[in-house]
């Protein structure tokens, strides 16, 4: 006979303020199989857990239902508590009285009744639970890192330095990401490339890191510890082994007027190109879309001049496969372009630029060698306007969130401008200054107090061009929303940071969740910030939401440490939520009829054929068998099995039916 204990948590006021917890506990006493029921302020606290352990010992409980928060939050906690008290952890279930009840309904009898129903349902289920043991699977101790910006670089180096293999793939010809484009970094104003390039070189030379640039993930199969990654190496059209990176080809390439990505289209590059001088690897690729030979079948000048005969026009894309134990997604972000803003001219004014373009103008390696010159005529702007929140916090434009980094980089931009153009005027239109971070507020204050940047609180309504000036129409909300008009020479829009336009595709390949803005979703917003809901896949940096460099690096190291924890074990234990085919006594052996419908619907190829032999060694029946190492526990096979011969542990037919029936027979 089952002896179930029920434990109702108040979660302080979170549940207790809406649900009459005491009444729920009292009602539960009368449920069939319940021998003990109580409520307590904080069940997850030490005394709360002790209370459960004592009740298990005193009342010889065989199963436990905790009515508290979401099982996604504390199921592991209470399962551990139970197993420490001698009850198999899988004999414990949680009723979600907080997220699914007290937080979504008003205080009152109906809500308390619902809470009671939820507990009744889980009591019904747990009566049919069976003790289970975790499953052990081997681990491939190689990490796949997707994205070679600062997040990917940091996480790769951390894992590699700890002695494990890393495969780092990067979509662009070089690693470095957006950080390599920045001029100085806030709040210290140290040079971005100076601190980044040594790490890029370290990645390239590290014996534990396999760097694959100009590459994208084709597919990822398998599960934690045992992924198979297929990677597409796009044809670079050169033989990297022969290429010495001498640069002859790029000098000779006649197609020279392609707006360069690295300089945010403020400068040009050639068709065969190295994105920037410090690129890693420092070897060129041919941009097929702009190469005269690929487009018109004539030219081959680079081939003629290459001293090592490294050009390969007929090189195909290549697919490589790697065995992977864990994945870090570090694909970063994009910024919106100026064409996103109808009221600021649909991107048609050359001197209205993005923050990232300003970084290139301010950078010593940029198209103006660090002099602030406006794109239209190369003149030094005497008056410059910076707009914060350009597209961010703008639901009308589809972006509700704060891009987080703009307040800081806008202050930095204004400062850099003032440092370079001493007599110039810098205006910043802002809504709030969000400078929470070590030395951050001090930094923005310095821009205002020392560098005399004119901060105006208000959003700009419109920008138009007149007589070579940009007329910026704003308002000063601190002066009673008084209209303000500035005749500027250049305008910098701190455009919104957004997810890459192919982020959702990647999420689907990885089976991780993404939010309405296509940012990847962490497993828990506070307690599992670098994990995803898919075991073995981790997040680092701005692909999860806009982040600055210190946060990105911390997150990257966090993801690395999670992987190192994983790789410190030779075997992984996995939740035993897997399918099993029933076994019966002879002469039946199994009710499985051998139709293998289950095999055809299994997404993991986890169902094998098993021959059942008699004593004479003759095959009398072929039935399905589940490989628990491959099974991920979706249960699709269960729903498809016509003879009800396959079931899933933890969500068995009996469990689910009893859970539903317990709800419906509550009168």
């Amino acid at each position, binding site marked *: 006979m089952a002896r179930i204990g029920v434990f109702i948590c108040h979660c302080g006021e979170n549940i207790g303020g809406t649900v009459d917890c005491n009444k729920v506990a009292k009602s539960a006493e009368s449920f069939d199989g319940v021998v003990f029921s109580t409520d307590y302020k904080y069940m997850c606290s030490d005394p709360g857990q002790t209370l459960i352990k004592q009740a298990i010992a005193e009342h010889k409980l065989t199963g436990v239902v905790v009515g508290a928060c979401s099982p996604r939050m504390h199921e592991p906690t209470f399962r551990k508590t139970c197993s420490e008290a001698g009850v198999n952890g899988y004999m414990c279930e949680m009723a979600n009285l907080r997220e699914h009840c007290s937080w979504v309904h008003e205080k009152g009898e109906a809500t308390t009744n619902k809470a009671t129903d939820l507990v009744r349902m889980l009591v019904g289920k747990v009566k049919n639970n069976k003790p289970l043991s975790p499953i052990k699977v081997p681990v491939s101790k190689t990490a796949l890192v997707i994205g070679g910006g600062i997040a990917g670089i940091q996480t790769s180096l951390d894992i590699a330095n700890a002695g494990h293999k890393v495969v780092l793939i990067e979509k662009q010809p070089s690693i470095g990401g957006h950080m390599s484009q920045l001029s100085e970094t806030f709040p210290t104003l140290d040079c971005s490339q100076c601190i980044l390039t040594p790490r890029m070189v370290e990645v390239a030379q590290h014996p534990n890191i396999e760097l694959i640039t100009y590459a994208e993930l084709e597919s990822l199969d398998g599960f934690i510890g045992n992924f198979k990654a297929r990677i597409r190496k796009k044809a670079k059209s050169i033989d990297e082994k022969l290429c010495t990176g001498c640069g002859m080809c790029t000098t000779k390439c006649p197609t020279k007027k392609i707006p360069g990505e690295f300089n945010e289209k403020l400068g040009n590059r050639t068709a065969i190109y190295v994105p920037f001088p410090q690129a890693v690897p420092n070897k060129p690729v041919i941009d097929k879309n702009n190469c005269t030979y690929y487009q018109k079948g004539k030219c081959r000048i680079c081939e003629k001049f290459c001293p090592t005969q490294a050009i390969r026009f007929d090189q195909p894309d290549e697919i490589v496969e790697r065995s992977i134990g864990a994945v870090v997604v570090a694909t970063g972000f994009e910024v919106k372009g100026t064409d996103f803003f109808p009221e600021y001219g649909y991107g048609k004014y050359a001197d209205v630029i993005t923050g990232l373009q300003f970084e290139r103008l301010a950078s010593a390696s940029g198209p103006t060698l660090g002099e602030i010159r406006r794109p239209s005529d190369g003149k030094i702007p005497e008056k410059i306007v910076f707009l914060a929140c350009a597209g961010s916090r703008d*639901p*009308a434009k589809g972006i509700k969130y704060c891009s987080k980094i703009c307040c800081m980089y806008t202050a930095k931009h204004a400062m850099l401008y003032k440092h370079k153009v001493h007599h110039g005027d810098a205006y910043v239109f802002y*809504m709030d200054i969000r400078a929470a971070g070590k030395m951050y507020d001090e930094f923005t204050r310095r821009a205002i107090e020392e560098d005399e940047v004119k901060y105006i609180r208000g*959003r700009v*309504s*419109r920008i138009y061009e007149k007589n070579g000036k940009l007329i910026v129409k704003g308002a000063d*909300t601190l002066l009673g929303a008084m209209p303000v008009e500035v005749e500027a020479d250049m305008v910098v829009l701190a455009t919104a940071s957004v997810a890459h336009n192919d982020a959702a595709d990647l999420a689907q390949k990885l089976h991780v969740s993404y939010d309405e803005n296509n940012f990847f979703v962490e497993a828990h917003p506070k307690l599992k910030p670098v994990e995803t809901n898919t075991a073995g896949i981790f997040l680092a940096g701005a692909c999860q939401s806009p982040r600055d460099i210190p946060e990105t690096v911390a997150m990257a190291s966090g993801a690395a440490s999670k992987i190192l924890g994983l790789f410190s074990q030779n075997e992984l234990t996995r939740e035993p939520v897997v399918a099993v085919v029933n076994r019966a006594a002879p002469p039946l052996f199994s009710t499985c009829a051998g139709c293998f419908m289950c095999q055809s619907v299994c997404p993991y190829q986890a169902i094998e054929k098993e021959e059942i032999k008699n004593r004479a060694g003759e095959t009398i029946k072929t039935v399905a068998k589940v490989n628990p190492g491959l099974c991920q526990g979706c249960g699709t096979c269960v729903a498809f099995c016509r003879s009800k011969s396959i079931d899933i542990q933890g969500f068995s037919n009996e469990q689910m039916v009893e859970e539903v029936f317990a709800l419906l027979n509550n009168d």
Partner: protein
Amino acid sequence: MSHHSETSNSFTKKLAASTGVEINRCYQCGKCSAGCPMSVEMDMPPSLVIRHLQTNDEKLVQKAVQSHAIWLCLSCETCLCRCPMEIETAKVMDYLREEALRTNQVNPKARKIVAFHKSFLSSVKNNGRLFEIGLVLKYKLASGDLLKDMVLAPSMFLKGKLHLWPERVKTKIKLHKGSNTVH
């Protein structure tokens, strides 16, 4: 189905119930005031009008109702076009103007504008269509602006732009007001 209690009688709730505009969404960025063609003439630019209403403070709400600004709004909807929160400020202005008329709190500076609107509507009420000379005459009497456009009207007439007699709709428009009478 809403589970929020609708017991509050705050101004913002009443406004939302009548116009569908939820001004608590406004976060005071000032973009409406920045783009408004009339804000330079206003005693209270649009975002400031909204701010007064957001307080739900009776005195501050009255201040907005009594403002000159609400009468200067041209309903050009530039504010809505650029508002990040898509707040229909022109609708709020309509509501406030009607409130000012209903409670006799029309800003004195708006006398001429109100006179024009009233003359216009009365002309339409009489004829079903606008009778421009009639409108101008009525407006002059109501506003006291007797010499206004003395030059323009004759030349308009000469250019065939003014009718001497009103054109009327065949069936006179009569509003059947039930319990929802406004004035």
